[in-house]
């Protein structure tokens, strides 16, 4: 594993950063929030991302992708995190898209994956209910056999990118109970399926999330992703992949919040001097810098661990899961710390809604509580290491 960017990766990083910072990014998110925009992101921006090839990164050439990996994808999500870009790249491409790429039939791929890569359709993954916390065995939906069909009933919450999405990958309990890995089945559910309704939920970070209600929605065998009762491994796999993509976004967010804060320390004057000349504040800034550098190493390592050998994205290295947990725990602690400190170091202005820095605090907290917080991932790391 080489923890250094190749020339191609450095170029991708620059392109992505230029694209995101080319528009007043936070102002855009603020406007979407203040207008209570139903979609919460911009379809035309998302189409541009697809044009740039970002939606094709983690797929094989056979599936219409670029055959690249997570080492590349985290550079894109890092840039998105810099601008808190709300476009649903992670839910549509990594969560649902990768699930279909890894477990879907040719028909699934033709109907959903190809248009998702093209940016024409948006997909989402429904895997949690209100009391799931971070437990992937607590499926939001029950699926009962009804002749040669399944009837899905239940409610999924905070489905990322879920409102106005075109189709969902849904985790449903077909056998057993909470806590059992067996008995979870993944379905591909078109949004227009009778009995499926979506309601936009409004979350602290203004991201598009939806509550999906399934009222005896009928699905067939052909809508099953992979094998009946054996969807958990695939679900866990794409959640790990999305976790790494998210840590890239978190890295971008903490970097931006940090740089804005350091700039403020340089320009804000009190007692006749820049407040950045006070040692109490210098030391806090230096500590945050250390956290940032450590987080970057963890994110790069986790992405490369998922990629395994170059181009072989299905051959992750043996301790990839540990590195995923390492990256998420690190990124969670660091982003929340940096965002909290960013507010404190901005002083009163940092508490106002008018100032942009508060958006980073909100996103930090939401990211921390997505796919497992630091405590969850330390527990998982310890278990994986055998203690």
């Amino acid at each position, binding site marked *: 594993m*080489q*923890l*250094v960017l190749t020339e191609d990766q450095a170029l991708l990083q620059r392109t992505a950063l230029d694209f995101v910072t080319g528009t007043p990014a936070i102002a855009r998110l603020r406007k979407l929030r203040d207008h209570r925009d139903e979609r919460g992101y911009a379809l035309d921006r998302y189409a541009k991302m697809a044009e740039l090839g970002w939606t094709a990164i983690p797929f094989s050439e056979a599936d219409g992708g670029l055959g690249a990996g997570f080492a590349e994808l985290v550079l894109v999500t890092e840039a998105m995190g810099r601008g808190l870009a709300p476009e649903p790249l992670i839910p549509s491409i990594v969560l649902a898209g990768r699930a279909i790429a890894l477990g879907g039939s040719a028909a699934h791929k033709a109907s959903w994956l190809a248009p998702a890569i093209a940016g024409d359709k948006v997909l989402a993954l429904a895997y949690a209910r209100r009391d799931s916390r971070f437990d992937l065995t607590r499926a939001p939906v029950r699926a009962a056999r009804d002749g040669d069909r399944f009837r899905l009933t239940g409610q999924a919450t905070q489905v990322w990118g879920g409102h106005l999405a075109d189709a969902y990958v849904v985790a449903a309990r077909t056998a057993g109970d909470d806590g059992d890995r067996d008995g979870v089945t993944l379905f591909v559910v078109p949004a227009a399926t009778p009995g499926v309704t979506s309601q936009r939920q409004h979350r602290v970070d203004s991201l598009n999330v939806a509550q999906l209600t399934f009222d005896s929605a009928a699905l067939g065998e052909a809508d099953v992703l992979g094998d009946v009762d054996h969807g958990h491994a695939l679900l866990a796999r794409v959640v790990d992949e999305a976790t790494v993509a998210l840590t890239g976004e978190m890295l971008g967010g903490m970097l931006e919040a940090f740089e804005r804060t*350091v700039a403020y*320390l*340089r320009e804000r004057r009190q007692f006749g*001097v*820049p407040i*950045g*000349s006070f*040692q109490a*504040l*210098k*030391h806090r*800034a*230096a*500590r945050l*810098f*250390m956290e940032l*550098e*450590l987080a*970057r*190493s*963890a994110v*790069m*390592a986790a992405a490369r661990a998922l990629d395994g050998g170059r181009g072989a994205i299905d051959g992750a290295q043996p301790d990839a899961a540990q590195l995923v*947990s*390492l990256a998420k*725990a*690190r990124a969670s602690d660091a982003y929340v710390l940096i965002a909290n400190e960013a507010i404190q170091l901005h002083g009163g202005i940092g508490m106002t809604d008018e100032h942009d820095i508060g958006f980073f605090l909100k996103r930090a907290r939401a990211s921390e509580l997505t796919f497992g917080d630091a*405590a969850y991932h*330390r*527990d998982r*790391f*310890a*278990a994986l*290491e*055998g*203690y």
Partner: protein
Amino acid sequence: MTDAERFRADLVELLERELPARLGGLPPPTADYWGGRNPELPHPLSRRYCEAMAERGLTAPTWPTEYGGGGLGKQEAKILLEELRRLQLPPPLVGFGLSMIGPTLLQFGTEAQRREHLPKITRGEIRWAQGYSEPNAGSDLASVQASARFAGDDLILNGQKVWTSYGDKADWMFGIFRTDAGGKKQEGITFLLLDMAQPGVEVRPIKLISGASPFCETFFSDARAHAKDVIAGVGQGWTVAKALLGHERNMIGDLFGAGARTRRAGGNALAELARAYLGVKDGRIADPVLRDRVAQLAMDERCFALTMQRSADSVKAGHKPGPESSIFKIGGTELNQRRQELMVALRGPQALGWEGEGFDERELAQTRDWLRSRGNTIEGGTSEVQLNIIAKHVLGLPD
């Protein structure tokens, strides 16, 4: 066969066959040999191993051959390290001559100074000590007061140095002395070398809270140094001293970084310790709070090691060392402190033994290691000074 392959083959021949046959064996990897006029021998063959390697310039592989070095490129030096590691051999020689004053002389010394001092370092003949800190010049190093006054071709030295690592075992000292008390305090400092075997130099060991230490106090009463041993000119000592501190911090970072790598290779020793002292329940460390701390530290150490790797990979790829390298001294030493504290917590009351009955050897060593580790964030530049450096030089915050 490429040049690198031929170099490796010759090295293997030397280390695996020729030297063991000639010397009747080689020292184990833990036997650090510091050399000097009256060298301590961690292993009976340490000195002969050092001398045999020095004949080929392999004690200072990347130094120029005219000063006793090996004249090797980076790739060959890396091969040497790899082969030593593979054959479980120690470096032939360690010490502040190789790690600190040698690189400084290569950067600032005159041709005569290099020819005089470097070969004696590479052959392990002279062991060096560092004379920097004083009772009133710790973090504020530029406040040194120990004085040097010219008397013909000599300088007369008076005053005191403190925290002289292995001062009682060293032959020569490099240090900073005040040659001019007027003007800005960074000016008027001179970097010079002196022979410690003279009546005007007295060395006393310092006992630390851990019960022992490598540190000494050094007193100068009309001691003498030669004008030809002034480095980079009178009054230019601050520039030299700062450059040398860079070499020192790299060494400390490498030390703890290497520790992190070895720990990784050797499995999680902390988890083993936790199992032994706390028990196991359902396959997990029985105490959930301490289990969480074990995991947190293991993850933080891994993350630190990855950052060291990232820095090294970046340099290998031809980039300049990135800003991440500024965190190694503070990050590595704080991790070691946390590790020591956690080991005390895991052993519980058994970590409290000082000596004698009721505690096993490792428990007793643990107590001392924990106490010693408190110094890690003070020696070699306190954490607070490191934070100042990051704030100023990396973040560009104003004075």
